[in-house]
Each structure stands twice: as C-alpha cells, then as structure tokens.
C-alpha cells in the first residue's frame, strides 16, 4: 500500500485546480492590454541596489522596444489574501480574496501573460479545471454505463450478453474524433459554448463505455462461477445480493484502473478539440485552447512561457498514471 503515497500529488493537484479562483491571482479573462506577451515576473529578495528584503517583492514591467524591462524604481511586495476580481469556487459561493497578489500597477504574472495581456497562471489553473471537469464527467458517464451494461451482460448472459457485446464492438469501432466533429458541426451557432461543451462531454462518455463494459463483463463472468458464489446461491441468496456482495467488489480494481486510464484520455480528447478550436470558446480558457495558440510559429518561437499548459497537462496525466498503478496493485491484492 506504499504506492498510495503517489496519490498525494493527484489530490494536491485537484485541490489546487478546484480552488483555481482562490489560487489564481487574477480573473483569467481580464485583459491587461498594455502588456501582451510579457515574460514571467520573478519574485525578488534582493533589490536593484543589493539590499535584502525579508518579504519577497516584484517589479512592474514596462514595454521597452520590442520587449519589456523591469521598472526597478519601485518595489511591490507580495501580499497574501489580497482582494482582486470576484470568483466562485462553486456556483453561488462568490468571493474576491486571492491567495496572493501585488498592488497595482504591478502585476504578479509568474507564468507571464498571453497575447491579450491575460495572466497565464490564472488561465492554466482555470483552464485545467475546465479540462479536468470534462475528463471526470466523461469518465463518470463512461464508467457508469460501462459497469452497468458489462455486469448485465456477464451476469444475465445469453442473448442479452450477445446484444450488448456486439453493440460494444460497434461503439469501439466509432472514430470518436470524427463523431465529435460531426456533433459540433451539427450544433447551432447560438448554443452557449458551455452547453455545447457539456454535450461533447456526454458524447465522449457515451462512446467510451464499451471498453470498461467488456472488462467488467469478463470479471463478472469469472466471478459468478467461483465456488463461494455458487455456495451463496446454494444457501438461497438472491441474485441481487450475490451481485452486490460477491461479484461487484471484484470489479473495483478494474474500474479504478479504467478510471485512471480514461480520465487522462478524455482530458486529451478535450484538449484536442479545443486545440482545433472546437471546444471551449474565447474568452474562457482550457488547456487545449491555450495550447492552440502554439500553432502559430511566432508564439512557438518567441514566448516559451506559453508552454505552461503543456506542463500542467503532463502533471495531470502523470498523476492519473499513478492512480492507475495504485488501482492495478489494489486489483492484485483483491485477487490474491
């Protein structure tokens, strides 16, 4: 069970992303039009004269020629629990206290700004929230449907099994990305981009049920032939009881492993769509739409901090990979 230590980054990452509004210093859609593509601001402990300051501070950036320079004439200490733009952690619970910030006119953009002067850190956090929620919702859909249908097929068997498994074959053969293109194209323009997005999530989940359902079916098939299951049935246990008490627990490991695989897969699906401009629309951020700007050569070549969403994506995928390993280990434990 030492592997569960790897779950700490996963939980930490999700906490960070869940609290995006609080951790992010700025509103992710607020434009600071005087500082497009400003490089990351560095917190300092020593000022330009070499004097040490206990409280870290930043300098304001001012445009100079083609780039930016730090204006060292004034220090802006980093403050905690500052009041900035309003946000909601969950709908209805609004607040305007941010974890950290600096006094205007300086801005603490520690991941730099994008082409509209929007804070990249704030956008990465909010964008990751959108992408991860998409991944989680789609996974939830896929696993619920997959487990239910897989159990049904395995436990009932016969014609039901055949129909469900052939349907699963069909769904696995569907090239989901083209399906998503088709769905997005068929949607009317006037639909709210968030609503369109949720619909896409649903499509992802519905297409994704096939693989988990097959795996669950296999486990259910083998579990229902076990001697203790037969014994329970011999003592007169009802099928639902057998299912709940003896069969379904066998599938947990597989379901957890599948979750670990599906979440990053669906996050990537969302990223792909947004990268191609078919996901979340401007001005809202998602990891994919942020990475989409890297399709432009000048961004790719000039502004390295615009790769921040890619780093976040790798972290998220790695954290879920850890979850998969954990699930795998657990499945082994259960099996032994």
């Amino acid at each position, binding site marked *: 069970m030492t592997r569960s230590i790897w779950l700490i980054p996963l939980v930490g990452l999700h906490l960070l992303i869940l609290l995006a509004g609080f951790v992010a210093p700025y509103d992710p*859609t607020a*434009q600071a*039009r005087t500082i*497009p593509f400003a490089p990351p601001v560095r917190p300092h402990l020593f000022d330009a004269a070499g004097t040490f300051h206990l409280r870290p501070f930043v300098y304001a950036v001012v445009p100079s020629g*083609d780039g930016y320079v730090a204006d060292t004439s004034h220090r802006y200490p980093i403050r905690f629990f500052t009041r900035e733009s309003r946000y909601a952690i969950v709908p209805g619970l609004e607040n305007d206290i941010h974890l950290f910030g600096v006094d205007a006119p300086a801005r603490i953009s520690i991941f730099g700004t994008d*082409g*509209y*002067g929007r804070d990249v850190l704030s956008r990465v956090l909010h964008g990751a929230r959108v992408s991860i929620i998409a991944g989680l919702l789609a996974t939830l859909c896929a696993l619920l449907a997959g487990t239910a249908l897989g159990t049904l097929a395995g436990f009932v068997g016969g014609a039901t099994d055949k129909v469900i498994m052939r349907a699963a074959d069909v769904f696995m053969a569907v090239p989901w990305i083209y399906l998503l293109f088709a769905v997005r*194209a068929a949607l009317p*323009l*006037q639909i*709210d*981009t968030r609503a369109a997005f949720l619909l896409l999530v649903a499509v992802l989940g519905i297409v994704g049920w096939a693989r988990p359902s097959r795996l669950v079916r296999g486990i259910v098939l083998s579990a229902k032939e076990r001697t203790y299951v037969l014994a329970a049935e011999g003592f007169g246990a009802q099928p639902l009881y057998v299912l709940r008490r003896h069969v379904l627990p066998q599938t947990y490991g597989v379901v957890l492993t599948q979750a670990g695989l599906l979440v990053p897969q669906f996050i990537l699906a969302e990223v792909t769509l947004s990268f191609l*401009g078919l996901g979340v*629309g*401007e*001005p809202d951020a998602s990891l994919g739409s942020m990475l989409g*700007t890297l*399709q*432009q*050569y*000048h*961004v*790719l*070549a*000039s502004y390295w901090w615009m790769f921040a969403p890619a780093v976040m994506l790798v972290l998220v995928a790695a954290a879920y990979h850890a979850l998969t390993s954990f699930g795998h280990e657990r499945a082994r434990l259960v099996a032994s």
Partner: protein
Amino acid sequence: MTRRLPVIAAVAVAALLSALPLQAAPQPTPIAAGEEVLVQRHEVGVPGGRLIVALRAEPRTLNPVVSADLPSREVIGRMTADLIHINRLTQATEPSLATAWTRSKDGRVYTLTLRKGIRFSDGDPFDADDVVFSFRVLMDGRVASPQRDLLIVGGKPIEVVKVGPHTVRFTLAEPYAAAERLFDSIAILPRHLLERAYADGTLQDAWTPRAAAASMAGLGPYRLKEYVAGQRVVLERNPYYWKADSAKRRLPYIDELVFLFTGTEDAQVIRFQNGESDVLARAGADNFNLLVKDQAARRYQLADLGPSLEYYFLFFNLNDLSKKNLPEVAARQRWFNDLAFRRAVSRAIDREAIARLVFRGRAVPLWGSVSPGNRLWVNTALPHPARSVAEARATLKAAGYSWRADGALLDAHGQRIEFTIVTSATNPQRVEMATLIQADLKELGITVRVVPLEFRALLDRVFETFDYDASVFGLGGGDADPNAELTVWLSNGTNHLWRLGQPAAATPWEAAVDRLMQQQLVTLDMRERKRLYDRVQAIVSEQLPFVFLVAPHILVGARADLGNFQPAVLDHYTLWNVDQLYFKTPASDRR
C-alpha cells in the same frame, strides 16, 4: 512536432536546388533594329542567378484567362504583360505594350498604339491581332473569365477593333473614369498558340500546370521551364523580353525564378528565415517582428511599407431575412438595424488596442473604408472619434436602451443584448480581433460569443444562408482607384456584405451611395471624382454598415544583396519589378 517535417523537407529541397547546376539559361537575343524596346532608368544590375520565392499554396492553373487564386496570379503575373500598366510605386499608369494612347473627348473611345517589333517568349511576333484575340476571349461568356465583369461597361462588352497592324481602338458604351487603369494586369495572349483551342471551346482547359512548356508563351519577363506538381514551378528568362536597362541590355537580369509551394504563412516565413527563399512576399506582423529580432544574425532586408489598402471591419447581418427561416437572427436584427446601436458599438471598440495587440503596432486604426495608405483617395476630413465607453453608453441610453442590475444591456423591450461574431478559424488575427471586441463590448453590458468556423462554412453563412449575426472580414487591397470598390458599395454588388442581393437600394443612404458611385464612374474630372468619393466615405462612416477597425501594414523582406528591391503597397508587393531585380554578390559567393 508536425512542424519539423516541412522544415526537413525544405532543407532537402533547398540543398537539392542549390546542388543542381544552372543549366545554360537562354541568353537574351540581341536587340533588333526597329524593335521598340522600353528602356528603363533604374540601377544597372548584373545578370545571372536564381531567385527562390515561397508561395503559400500551389497555383491551380497557369492560364491567365481563368486564374482567380492568388498563387496562380503570382506566377502568371511574371509570365505575361499588359497594354497599360499601373506603376506599383507611383500608382500612376504608364506605357507597357502600348507605347501611347489617346482618349476621345466624350471619354468613350481609347486608341492604343502598340509596341512594334517585339516578340512573345517563343519568338513569335506580337501585333494588334493578339490584342483583339485576347479581349475577344476575355469577354466571351462561354470562357467565363473572372476578369470579364471588369470589361463590361454600361452593360455592354468593350468593342475592340484593329485599326492597323499596331493600332487598336477600344469603344466603351459609356464614359468610364480612369478606363486606362482597366488594362492593368490583363494579360495579352499569343493568338498563334491559343486560337485553335478557343475555336474548339477548350481554351479554359489549356495551360494547366501539367501543360508542356513549349505550348505556352507570353510577353512577361519569364517563361515556363518546368513544373513539378506539389513541389515547385521553375521559370526561365524570356530571351525576347521587350524591356532593357539604360546600358541597352535586355532584361531581366536573373536567369531563373523558382516558386516553391509551402502551405502556410508560417512555412513561408521559416524558409525565408533559414535562407531557403530569397523574397518574402508578405508576412503577418507577428512573424515580421520575429524576423526583425533575428535580422542581425541573418542576411536579409526587411521593409514595413506602412498601411496597405486593405481594411478590416466588423459588420452586422442586415440582410432581408423575410424569405429565410431564421426567426432568431431576424429578432436580433432589430438592434443591428438601429444606427444608434452600431454607433455605440463603434464608439466602444478600442481600435488602438487592435493595432497594438493583434498587429503588434503594424497597423493603423480606421474610421472609414479608405486606408491612409491610399493617399490619393482617402477622405482626410472624416472624424476619428476616440474610444469612449461613456459616450457609447450615452448613445444607447438616448436610444431607449437600459441596463439590468447586473450590468447587462437591455433593449427597449427588455430583451437582453447578446450576439455571435463568426470568424475564420484558420485566421488567428481575425479571431483575436473578435476576442478584443468581445471584451470591449462587455463593458457596454453586451454579451458577445466568438465562434471560429471553417472558412468555407463561414463564406456559406455570410454569402448564402445569412445565418449569422456579425462577422469580422477584410476587403480591399486591389487597385487604389474607387472603381475597384464598386462591388462593395453598389447596393447590388457582390461584396455588399451587410445586405446582399438587393433588387433596389433598401435605404435612402444606400441609394445615395449608389448614385455617387455611378456618378464618379462616368466623371472624367479627377477633382470632381474625388469630391464624389469623399462623400461616399463620409456617408459610410456615418451609417456604419461596416464598423471599420484597422488597415494592416504591408510587411515584406528580401535577401540583403538583392538589388533594385523596391517593394510597393500594391499587389504584387515584391515581385512587381522582378525584371529589374539582380544579385549584388556573384552566385559562387552566395550559396
């Protein structure tokens, strides 16, 4: 990562091209007695070398009669010549294949004297029959040339009559201001090569990229040597070209002109940056800045020529939707048709920010259709109201709009104001402009959604189904003359984007614009034409069918040792004087 492949391919192609020995280029023929060669007074250059240019896409055809796409025209323009030419630097007309011309007093009859003793690129002589043939082909409805509409004046084709072996008379049904400008870029065709195809009705299919070089000829500085589908087209010097430098040496200087097909603007820029192409025809501001930063390390010259003649604008769907089943769009048209609404939108848009953020400062804010780059025709008296959200709100308030407690704008019926801007997904600049407008209008309490669409889907909505609210487009960039804008401002014009296909002008001000545009068309006095066109610009900037945003600069580049490089704001920006270009350093020192 897919980006690497083209780069590797580009390096391979460049290595291959530079490894190929220059096959003996055709030497210019000596200038014959009686040949009326046009002697140009530019810096005398050194002959030789190969100029490589990266095209955005592969040309669809090499046939000047049917070409419509930009890459085709870029290549064909180097292989053909026109009768009267617009000088890209001075923007004035100058003799080309016609040495002189006269206009009758009523402005309807033009008599052109043709250059004597000159030859097509295959050595066949040129005379009035070629001119008459060319115009017959272009105005033939069966051929369906995209240039045909230009040559229909007053509803009738121009009458073209051969008066002598080197004299042609053009008769127009109506007087047409600046008619001599019509001749620019109309390629004169070799009758001896195309007459049979025309008689057979197959002329529009002739001269495809796969056609044999020997089956083609033109009067331009270059002729086809080789076409490699999907890769490049190679042109070689036309040994009979009819221009010479002041040392009486026949032009052009450069032996070979190679057009590579790249695919995207980014790929064009990368090739230029790596020294794999010699001329960058046009760059976006972002890429241009990237090249500027890198300029010291590389050997190229870059030029910001200032504002182009193009104008970008936001426009609303004002089409008559009574025959379309679009109740939702029709409901929103209540606002779009409201002049106060359009004025408030215009007032709230931060044009300076668009110029600064989207074009990195390489664009000028616009309040009218004519860019300041068009010095001859711009109406400098138009007001340039600064951005003011307060003024915009006051305008809305006076027109009966109000605000909800949460700041959302409501119309007089209490309906919340929200609309969609559709743009082309492949054009990041337009998406960025729309995103800035979205943030600007949020300050008025207007919710704007930005929807990038695939380009053809966008055109379908704007030109066919009318299922859209608003869009960001760019137009212009052709000739400086107002006649180039007829299709936009005439109420039955094909580019009258906001309200297409009108049987009659829908509003009094559109009727007034129609009258003014028709009037300037038949007015021969330049000052009077300017007065009429100024009035058009004033009406348009008051009525705001287009909310003008910016005019981007023309940004070009060439290798540092390219002599006589004189880019211009008119198309073709860099290769318009390709016959004068030359390499200052000998080929052996270059690659």
